[in-house]
Structures are given as C-alpha cells and as structure tokens.
C-alpha cells in the first residue's frame, strides 16, 4: 500500500504529458471515486487523497459515497496521479493490470486513465464539463451509479475533442477493462462527429459498473432525438426509393438526384399531355433535358424548355419539315412515341424496335426525360446524347 504510493510518485516524475490540466478536480475526484466503486476496489481512496498510508479495505461503498458527497477537496497529488497514470498508459504497451484481480493497482490505473482521458477532453470542452457538476449534484446516491448516463453525456460531449493519442490509450484500456462495450465505444468515439450524433437511446447497463454506452444506446436526449430524426428520414428515403422506378441507389445524395429527375420528368409529362389534348395541328412536343443524368442539374432550365417548346409548336403548325430542322439544329431528334414510352417505363430499350433515328442507347430511367406527346404524326422529341 505504501509502496504503491511511492510507485505512483515515481511515475509522477516520469510523466511525459505536460498538457494534463488541473481542472474541475472537484467533480473529477468524485468521478474517480465513483469509478473505483465500479471496479469494486477495496482501496480507501479518501485515505489516499489525504496522503495517508493506511488503507481500509473493509470500508463499504455507501460510507464512501456519503463521505465523497459531503464535499471533497482533492489535492494536487490526485491530478499528479492521473498524470502518472497517463504516463503509465503511454509507456507500457502491455497493460500491467488485470481486471479480474481487482487489486488496488489495477483500479487506480484504470481510474487514472479514465480521468486522464476525461481531463484532456474536458479541457477543450468546458461546456460539457460544467454540466457534470450539475449532474452530480442533482443525482442522488443511487443515481450516481448510473454510470452510463454520465458516460453517455461525457462521451457525447468529448468524442469530438479526443485526440488520436488518447483514443489509442483509451483503446488499450478499454480492451482490457470493458471488453465489447469499450470496443464499440471506441469505434463510436472514432466515428462520432462533434455533435452527439454518435449515440442513441437505450437501456443503461447494470448499476455499479461504469460501462460506456454502446453505439446506439446512449441515453442523452439530444442524441436520441437526433437518432430518431435520422431514422425517420431514412425510412422516408426508402419509401421514395420504391416509388422512383429503376433506381438501385442507396446513397442519400444519388437517391435525391433520382427523385429530382423523376419529379421533373413527371412535371414535364403533365405539361406535354396537357398540350396533346388539343385538337388541331400536330399535337405538341417537348424538349427533353440533358439525357446524361450526371450533371448536377438540368442544363435546360424551365425557361429554355418552354421557349423551345413554343417555337417547335409554332413551326409544327406551319410545316413539319421546318419543325424537324429546327429541332435538329438544337441537337434534338424525333422518335416514335410508343418507343419513347417503352423506353421510359422499361428497364432496357428494345433492341429490335424500329428506330427512326439513332439515339445511341441512352439510359432507360427517368433520367432520360423523354417527353412524348401523341400527335397526329406520332412524333416526339428526344435529346440525342
């Protein structure tokens, strides 16, 4: 016991990390002690903090907790120990402790590593750490044992601010101490964004065990709301995916692309069909937008489409030939309406169909945006790729 303290002081000298800040040691100490409870250590932390050499292994957790809650004053040695612990974690690739033993050494070091991580993280995110004393103050005896609640709030806040070195360190720690939850938590830390988007709601683990909330099980209300929102959007996107024909994309951006193209296609179809209702000269034509489907937006916006449309209609009223010439000048071509309809609805264009013009196998999805109208001659306009 005594030599344990000496060992810690020795490590203190060798600490490499100078950036351990002494901050919020008040609640950190409570956090630490709280953490040690989870490890079911027999050590008397209060004695350690007061730099005494006597340990009382038989002290109960409840007594400890009461003593802690009645206003703890951490000493500088505590943070030094944390620094030492950090240094220790850095120096030793193999962990010197074993969780199963639950000896003082292991509990201390694990607690130190946790504190180090949280200290370094809290230094950069003071807002979250300020919330913690409030959480602690409001929590009762039993509430303090809901570790993962605090863990969740901690890690949701600190996830973005952890550096890779700390993550590495934590990974070493978690691999030993926490097993699967820690691993998932680490992956969460690595992938979570700065916001609390990494975690979701979930049931807390058993009390008296400081387990990091699993990915998808954080209980922070913000992350829960965030996760719900994302899920709703995802299910809506899935429904949209079923509506849009010939789409096999799962990516959100390309899904939106398809949706946009399809809506434009339908709108143009309505426009065209409304023209075709008219008796009289050759129905109507509509110019299609760019058939590549790869551009960010249609090259022809609605204005130019309308202009082309009107022009072609006028020409068609006079003479079909001039209309065709006009279209060809614009890079458009004609095809039978039945073919166009088949193409737009079928997956693959019929290879054996009678094609009046070369249009070079464009995609058969709404991206092609062929708009056809039944007219007297049964012609329609399509962009030639």
């Amino acid at each position, binding site marked *: 016991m005594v030599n344990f303290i000496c060992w810690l002081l020795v490590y203190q000298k060798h600490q490499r990390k100078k950036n351990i800040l002494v901050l919020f040691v008040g609640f950190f100490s409570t956090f630490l002690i709280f953490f040690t409870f989870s490890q079911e250590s027999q050590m008397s932390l209060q004695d350690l903090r007061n730099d005494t050499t006597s340990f009382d292994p038989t002290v109960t957790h409840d007594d400890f907790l009461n003593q802690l809650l009645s206003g703890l004053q951490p000493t500088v040695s505590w943070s030094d120990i944390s620094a030492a612990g950090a240094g220790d974690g850095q120096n030793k690739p193999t962990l010197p402790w074993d969780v199963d033993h639950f000896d003082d050494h292991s509990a201390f070091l694990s607690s130190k590593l946790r504190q180090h991580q949280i200290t370094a993280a809290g230094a950069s995110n003071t807002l979250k750490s300020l919330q913690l004393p409030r959480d602690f103050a409001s929590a009762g005896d039993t509430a303090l044992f809901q570790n993962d609640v605090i863990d969740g709030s901690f890690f949701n806040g600190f996830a973005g601010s952890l550096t890779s070195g700390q993550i590495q360190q934590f990974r070493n720690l978690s691999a030993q101490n926490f097993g699967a939850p820690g691993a998932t938590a680490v992956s969460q830390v690595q992938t979570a964004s700065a916001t609390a988007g990494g975690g979701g709601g979930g049931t807390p683990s058993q009390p008296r065990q400081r387990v990091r909330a699993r990915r998808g099980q954080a209980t922070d209300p913000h992350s829960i709301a965030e996760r719900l929102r994302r899920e709703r959007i995802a299910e809506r996107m899935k429904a949209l995916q079923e509506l849009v024909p010939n789409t096999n994309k799962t990516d959100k951006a390309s899904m*939106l692309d398809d949706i946009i193209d399809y809506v434009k296609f*339908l709108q143009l179809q309505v426009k065209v069909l409304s023209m075709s209702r008219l008796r009289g000269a050759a129905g109507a034509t509509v110019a299609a937008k760019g058939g590549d489907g790869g551009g960010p937006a249609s090259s022809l916006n609605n204005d130019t489409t309308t202009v082309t449309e009107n022009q072609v209609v006028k020409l068609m009223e006079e003479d079909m030939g001039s209309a065709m010439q006009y279209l060809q000048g614009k890079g458009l071509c004609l095809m039978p309406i039945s073919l166009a309809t088949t193409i737009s609805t079928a997956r693959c264009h019929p290879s054996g169909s009678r094609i009046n013009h070369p249009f070079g196998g464009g995609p058969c999805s709404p991206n092609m945006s062929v708009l056809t109208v039944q007219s007297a001659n049964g012609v329609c306009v399509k962009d030639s790729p």
Partner: protein
Amino acid sequence: MHNSSQLKNEFIKRWVQGLHLYCSSKKEMNLLERKKKIKLSADIALASARNSATCWSKAIISKAKKDEGNTNLVNNLSRLESKLMYAHKKVTCHKRIRSKKILMRSCGVGKKMKPRHGSNLPTCVAKRLVKKRTQVLKRLVPGGESMDEYSIIKEALDYMLSLRVQVDVMKNLVNATTNLN
C-alpha cells in the same frame, strides 16, 4: 395503393368540371393558351383532389388564386375551404419556418465546432451534396421553400404520387380521344 384509384376518380371529376367551365366560355384560344388552361385546370383539380391535406396542394391553390383570372375556376373547383384558411395556413407555415431558422441560427453560434483533423471531411462533403440537392427539390415541389429538410421529403413523396396519378389519367384521356378520332 388503395387511395390512388380514389384519387384518380376525384381528379377526373374535378378536371372535367374545370374543362367544362372553359368550354362553356365562347372565347377562341390559340394553342398555347389552351394548353395553359388545360394544365392549370388539371393542376388545380389534382391539388383540390387532395383536399389540401398537403402543403404542396395548398401552395398550388393559393398561387392560382393570386391570379385574378382564375378565381372562377379555383372557387368552383376547390369549394372546400375558405380563403381565410388558406392564407392563415400559408402564413403560419412561413412563420414557423422563419422562427425555426432564427432559433437554429442562435443555437448554431454556441455550438460552432471546428472540423476535426479531416476525419469529418467526407461527412461534410456528403452533407453539402445532400443539402444542395434538397434545395433543388425544394424549388421543384410547389410550396417547398418554406419547409425544412425533413418535411420536404414527405411532401415530395406525396407530390410524386399525385403527379403520377395525374399523368396516368391524362394519358388515358389522350389515348381515348385519339382513338375516338
């Protein structure tokens, strides 16, 4: 879907009503005007067939009402809700969006975080792409500007369904008339 055939019936009913209105007027219209009228009547018929349950239908109807020449048509076709309700709904819609934007802006000031080590760079890029596309979608769907990202998807879903119904009905009508001719 069960309500698509229902929607079709409603749509046809109202559209024919609207077309009758135009036919009864003895004016001679050229091609373009006729096309516009037909399209307009079809749009309004579709929007009112939805009973203004969705935002886009309200937007279409309110837009059509702004034009003085259409009031007859619109009133005849909709005849469901009062003008007051339309205006009220549109105003509340805009107010909600505006206040939400103000709130988001004020919250965003406190939550501003620097991008971390390029680990979030692909996420940022993806988010930006998605945002661009949602903006385009907002322009497409009528009345879509005053909606947040989540409800625009719902509106687009509904709008797409209705558009498909409209296209089907019109196509059938076109085929029928050409066959008759």
